[in-house]
């Protein structure tokens, strides 16, 4: 099982469905993870996921990269560590890590001269994340509906007064 991977992909989907802005921006301004309609989103999801999963599957299609993931599942490591572990050149390992990073399976961070690699950050479990997305959608709708209700109430008051006169 790899919940972190699911979370990563869910997060990506939330980002893309939230409109413009990628995952970096989404951290600061959480996108409305929309499920504006199940069918609508389904279409979007499938379109998006097929691209996303192509990248994931492509990344996983290589034995070294799978090994790297397994290794990073145990402990974070620098590219140098990984290169040594897998008896590869630094350049070769950089390429593999790049592919994994593009697929969203790995994140890297450079501190000083060392680039540390780790698995994608853990997020909410899918289920919770989905429910939250669904809730956010309705919540956003209802915020707008509040405005409509307020307006109708005002109108009713005005009309009521007119009628009484």
């Amino acid at each position: 099982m790899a919940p972190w991977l699911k979370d990563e992909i869910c997060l990506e989907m939330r980002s893309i469905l939230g409109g413009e802005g990628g995952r970096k921006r989404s951290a600061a301004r959480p996108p409305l993870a929309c499920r504006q309609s199940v069918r609508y989103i389904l279409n979007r999801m499938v379109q998006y996921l097929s691209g996303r999963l192509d990248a994931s599957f492509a990344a996983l299609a290589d034995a070294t990269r799978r090994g790297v993931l397994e290794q990073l599942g145990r402990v974070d490591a620098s590219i140098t560590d990984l290169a040594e572990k897998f008896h590869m050149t630094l350049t070769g390992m950089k390429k593999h890590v790049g592919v994994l990073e593009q697929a969203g399976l790995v994140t890297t961070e450079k501190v000083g001269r060392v680039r540390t690699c780790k698995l994608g950050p853990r997020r909410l479990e899918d289920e919770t994340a989905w429910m939250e997305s669904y809730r956010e959608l309705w919540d956003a709708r209802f915020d707008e509906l509040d405005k409509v209700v307020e307006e109708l109430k005002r109108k009713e008051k005005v009309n009521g007064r007119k009628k009484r006169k």
Partner: protein
Amino acid sequence: MDARRESEIPVKNLTTVEQKSDRELVVTRTFNGPPRIVFEAWTKPELIKRWWVPKSMGMSLVSCEADVRVGGKYRFVFVHGASEPMAFYGRYLEVIPDSRIVWTNEEGGENGAVTTVTFEEKAGKTLLVVRDLYPSKEALDAGRGAEAATFETFEQLDELLVALGASMGRS
């Protein structure tokens, strides 16, 4: 609990979502107005279009037709960016003024949910409950869009990862 809640008067009413069963999703929310007003906002197309697609979603409603009476049809057409317009449509099965609306979601084919919205008066406010009842568990899962797409593919990924013996060490 109710007394405490009322005395606090929340700034914003909470929206809650609950999966009541493997076929049913329930959304609840209170509105600061009587049912007749909230009901009106759910039944007049010119009002529906003002809130059904929240602005923050970056989508826009192209057209919104709703003939809210038993047997009447509705059709909402949306676009998102440059995407092809998509329509949601169905028909109203039950319409009880200020109290209850039931409709079908036919764009989902035979997996489409039947949605029931109830408007209940609570001290001048409205407790609104939206229930999506799917014909089967599978239909609900399929209707879950994100999950339907992801769970299936995730299962494949999981199988792949298991097959690879890649114990990720994080679960």
